């Protein structure tokens, strides 16, 4: 994942001697594509997030309307399933990349950088996997006594 940020041990030590000497130069376009991705995903997220917020918070009764039934109603439609999944993936990857930048900016020691990035990767992968599973394996009638319209049909 973070091919461009891996430093060899020797580069890291020489960096200690002179904090301004750049590490071994990187080749490849990773930073370029991640920059492009931030813009592209940002635009898509704009639509997805605002659509999501509008539907969830502004239509009907606002945030108070949100409960199991609301979610169940929404995810019974593949449209909202795909919508939310896209939002989840793009949001997480966009956020992942953003936080990666932030970590790169503010950590000075290789050790801390490594720990934080590992945490970040784990959290991102976990969230994406969990979220996707939830969206697609969601069973609105998990409760056998459910009275929701999708279940009683």
């Amino acid at each position, binding site marked *: 994942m973070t091919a*461009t*940020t891996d430093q060899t041990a020797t580069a890291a030590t020489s960096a200690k001697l002179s*904090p*301004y*000497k*750049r*590490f071994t*130069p*990187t*080749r490849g*376009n*990773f*930073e*370029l594509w*991640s*920059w*492009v991705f931030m813009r592209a995903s940002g635009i898509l997220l704009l639509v997805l997030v605002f659509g999501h917020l509008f539907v969830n918070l502004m239509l009907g009764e606002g945030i108070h309307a949100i409960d199991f039934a609301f979610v169940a109603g929404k995810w019974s439609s593949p449209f909202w399933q795909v919508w939310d999944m896209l939002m989840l993936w793009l949001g997480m990857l966009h956020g992942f990349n953003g936080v990666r930048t932030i970590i790169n*900016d*503010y950590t*000075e020691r290789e050790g801390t950088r490594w720990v934080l990035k590992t945490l970040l990767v784990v959290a991102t992968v976990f969230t994406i996997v969990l979220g996707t599973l939830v969206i697609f394996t969601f069973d609105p009638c998990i409760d056998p006594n459910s009275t929701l319209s999708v279940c009683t049909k």
Partner: protein
Amino acid sequence: MTATATQPSSDEQKAGAVPTFTVTLKVQRYNPEVDEAPHFETYEVTAHATDRVLDALHQIKWEQDGSLTFRRSCAHGVCGSDAMRINGKNRLACKTLIKDVNPDKPITVEPIKGLPLEKDLVVDMEPFFDAYREIQPFLITNGHEPTRERIQSQADRDRFDDTTKCILCAACTTSCPVFWNDGQYFGPAAIVNAHRFIFDSRDDGGSQRLEILNDKEGVWRCRTTFNCTDACPRGIQVTKAIQEVKRALLTSRF
């Protein structure tokens, strides 16, 4: 010989008379030979309406504390020696009029940020020049030399005019929040000077320079905070130049 001095007259306060006032300067001091850490010291100087911060610093150095150390040379904004942080912003001391930085309150003067501090307002410039040298700031040409000058259209010449103005004062690079963090980022000044060659129609080294700036410490680290553009004493549109380099990398057109 000295008629001017012996003729005090009543209409002295005529055209061009410059009033004086007292201003307080809070200057960051650090002497590596004795101090553990930098600290501030306060000085009062008498200034004219036309004095620049550099004049005030000179007055302190020459009349109050000779050990105050800073760099300067041309005193009119063309050599790039005296970039420093005045009231929290990077400027050239020789181009900043005291009356323009609110002399009613103490004026804070600090060294530029992000480069190793050497003494008082002097920082180690080597890392800055290293980054500059890394981007191959010289004309690279293929093929053989023409006997006369190369031909370049006026439009091609104008394409990179803005970035030829750079005096390497480091005001931009040391105003950049990304540079402050770890000093790894090439910094706006290096990119400005790469821009000057990338967009020069006579140059053939554009793609190798772009390759260098495609590094993870290169242009992509810029977060468009515009501090560099605001700080540049030559009025160079620094961020614009950086964006042009980014776009050149995306499209391979330059």
